[in-house]
């Protein structure tokens, strides 16, 4: 029962539960928050697989920008079913949240002080000839080598795609 297996099982159960929460909550805001939780669990999956850069990018862009956009729109639009939601106020919620916050701080401090286990460096993409001289230290360097040697043209095309998306949003968002 390695730590990797334990964390995989915990993450699998948790991400499946939050993904089910996305599609089954009646309140759209709960669905959006559940999707943010799913995205965070997926970022932990990426950390488990050794893709540190993608994990951070996932949190920054997906959970940090795309879901914020979703929440803006969800809270702006009126839900179609006007059900009077039951205001269930859990009395012990703040105490549990405080304890979990302390657990999080304790866990992070423990990792910082004892030093996290760094895995072996990753090889660069097999389809690139320039990747032979890539430095063998760190995952982000391999990703950077792949990005700027083999995938440079798709990278530039995505900037064009983003400009098109911004223009489209501006056109759709204008008051007629």
């Amino acid at each position, binding site marked *: 029962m*390695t730590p*990797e297996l334990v964390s*995989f099982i915990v993450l699998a159960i948790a*991400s*499946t539960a939050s*993904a089910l929460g*996305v*599609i089954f909550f009646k309140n*759209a805001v709960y*669905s*959006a928050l559940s*999707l943010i939780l*799913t*995205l965070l669990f*997926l970022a932990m*999956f*990426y950390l488990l*697989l*050794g*893709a540190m*850069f*993608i994990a951070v*990018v*996932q949190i920054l*862009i*997906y959970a940090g*920008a*795309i879901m914020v956009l*979703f929440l803006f*729109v969800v809270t*702006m*639009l009126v839900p*179609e079913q006007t059900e009077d939601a039951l205001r269930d106020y859990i009395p012990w919620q703040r105490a549990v949240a405080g304890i979990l916050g302390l657990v999080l701080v304790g866990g992070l401090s423990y990792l910082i002080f004892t030093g996290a286990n760094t895995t*072996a460096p*990753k*090889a*660069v*993409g*097999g*389809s690139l000839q320039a990747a032979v001289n890539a430095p063998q230290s760190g995952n982000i360097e391999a*990703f950077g*080598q*792949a*990005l700027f040697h*083999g*995938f440079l043209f*798709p*990278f530039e095309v*995505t900037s064009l*795609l*983003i400009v*098109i*998306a*911004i223009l*489209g*949003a501006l056109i*759709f*968002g204008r*008051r*007629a």
Partner: protein
Amino acid sequence: MTHSIPLSAYLIMSAILFSIGVVGVLIRRNPLIIFMSIELMLNAVNLSFVALSSYLDSADGQMFVFLVLTVAAAEVVVGLALIVSIFRTRRNIDVDEMNILRG
């Protein structure tokens, strides 16, 4: 890197998340929730890419995740602008009511 978990575990996880997204697209009528289910499907595919990239020791899979992330962001921007403009004219965002183009 050395793995103790078989690759099929990650791929099954990705398949489970993908099918949850598909069910969400099929059973919900709020287009925002349908959008979120589509994002869930995209993330399931990202998990497959990252898992295969890690098990085959290639950074190409992570590059594709980067591109999928960018395309998903662009798609969300345009889709949400569409939904907001539909809401402005109809004051209602039930997908079952959007049947003007039906032949």
